[in-house]
């Protein structure tokens, strides 16, 4: 069973003084997230990532399409017992302490009274907040609030955890801790769906990613497969500057340091490049496949498009 199945889900908003214009927040989106996956939803600000999350969580209503979470339709309130959610830049009831806040959320999630204290203590310990459990949230820094946010998302032991920009605003240590926690949760069998614009985090954590821009799905797949789509380049290093014209003719980008030439060219031109080296009597030093990054893929999908202004 898929953790999330989205079929043509879309959202448009009425705009203008009389509400007679419409702006598309999310164009019809079809996507499946399998159980046990870490799935990343990537895109610049205003791409439709948060809108997608809000549609899945019933905070905004779709203008078209359907979706199912853990095999149940979106309007099935019971499925929410199995979902954890961390909103972007979380703000909680700051008159409460983390202990009280998590107890409140656990009550709302229907956690049994006998289990509640243990689950609250465990969640706080997992995010390293046990020592500050009785301090009012209004005295917390942003990083501490983010930790409490993650604790509230997992306090009721959900099967599916949705995180909206979980690393946003965190320092490198905080980001590392969140990454480790996401990996731990995934190892426990939980499905993780998170939105981010920090590509290195997605590359480290995700099994699959989807790229959104202007409310439209630009690509989706296993990270390694996607990277393969944009890689296919090799770096040829040789000794012999006389080979530069021949390599350039094959579409290579050449940089020479003294007599040593580094040429970056498409993988399909490798055989011709090696022949050109032999012909110009240059000496081959190395041939190395170029490793593409998620950023390369992201930029290849987004291109020069400016992000949408719709932000929900």
């Amino acid at each position: 069973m898929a953790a999330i199945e989205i079929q043509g889900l879309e959202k448009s908003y009425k705009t203008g003084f009389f509400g007679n214009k419409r702006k598309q927040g999310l164009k019809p989106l079809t996507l499946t997230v399998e159980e046990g996956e870490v799935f990343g939803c990537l895109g610049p600000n205003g791409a439709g990532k948060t809108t997608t999350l809000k549609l899945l969580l019933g905070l905004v209503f779709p203008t078209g399409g359907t979706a199912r979470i853990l095999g149940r339709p979106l309007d099935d309130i019971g499925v929410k017992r199995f979902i954890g959610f961390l909103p972007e830049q979380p703000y909680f009831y700051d008159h409460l302490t983390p202990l009280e806040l998590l107890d409140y959320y656990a009550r709302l999630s229907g956690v049994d009274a006998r289990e509640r204290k243990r689950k609250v203590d465990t969640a706080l310990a997992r995010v390293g907040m046990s020592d500050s459990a009785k301090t009012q949230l209004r005295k917390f820094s942003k990083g501490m609030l983010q930790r409490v946010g993650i604790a509230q998302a997992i306090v009721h032991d959900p099967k599916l955890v949705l995180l909206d920009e979980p690393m946003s605003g965190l320092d490198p240590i905080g980001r590392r801790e969140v990454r480790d926690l996401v990996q731990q949760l995934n190892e426990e069998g939980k499905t993780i769906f998170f939105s981010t614009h920090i590509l290195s985090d997605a590359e480290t954590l995700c099994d699959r990613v989807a790229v959104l821009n202007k409310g439209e799905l630009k690509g989706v797949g296993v990270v390694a497969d996607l990277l393969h789509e944009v890689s296919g380049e090799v770096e040829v290093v040789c000794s012999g500057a006389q080979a530069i014209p021949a390599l350039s003719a094959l579409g290579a980008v050449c940089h020479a340091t003294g007599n040593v030439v580094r040429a970056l060219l498409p993988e399909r031109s490798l055989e011709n490049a090696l022949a050109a080296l032999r012909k110009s009597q240059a000496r081959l030093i190395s041939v190395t496949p170029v490793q593409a990054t998620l950023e390369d893929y992201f930029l290849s999908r987004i291109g020069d498009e400016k992000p949408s202004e719709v932000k929900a």
Partner: protein
Amino acid sequence: MTGRLWAIAYNTYREAVRDRVLYNLILFALLIVGSSVIFGQISLQINRIVLINLGLTAISLFGIVIAIFIGIGLVSKEIEKKTLYTVLAARPVRRWEFITGKFLGLVMTLTVNALLMSVGFFAAVFYVSHRLGRGDLQLVTAVYFILLEFVMITALALLFSTFSTPVFSSIFAFAIFAIGTFGEDLRGIARMTSGVTHWAMTGAAYLVPNFAALNVISQVAHDTAVEPKLILLNTLYVLAYTAAVLTASVWIFERRNLK
């Protein structure tokens, strides 16, 4: 369901208490003590009338102001601060449960506030009259009617909070309260008109909450009995009106995109 309602209500109450809403009790205490001392120098009977008028009016006004200022933020503040995302998005909480829980939480806050004020008020009456008799039960009825006022104004403030900004909500709520205090006059005017105007005026008069019917402060200050029938009718009226307003709030909130 009951557990979730109670949790939301208790959280609302706890927020109000920790935001020092009950500090108004200090001001109330100063007012009661001050008036007892000042008017005590005039005569016993006048002092009692003034004290009852002033005390009950203060209980009512303090509560109304709190009900409006907290009530208008019950939903809009949660949307603005996004605190309700973690409640409605990933907890099995229905939107009507959220609205009802918030309403009950504020009514609970106002009730505790009014009861604490009432203790001070009755102590002051006892201090002035040197006794509390069966006749003073009318004062309890007046406090009960004030609580009914709070229930209605809380429901109205909450209704405005579901679709409007705090500034406009407070203007609407105070305006409705002010018009409602002339509820009986509105109905009187409606009776004097005819034709379409009569129907329009009657509709408007019954749409506005009749706070005038709940105000028996002057009556009890002059030891005039409140009829049991009025207690029953007022209770039923407030229950019906509040239920209608809460239903409207839920209807609006259920359809709202929480952007």
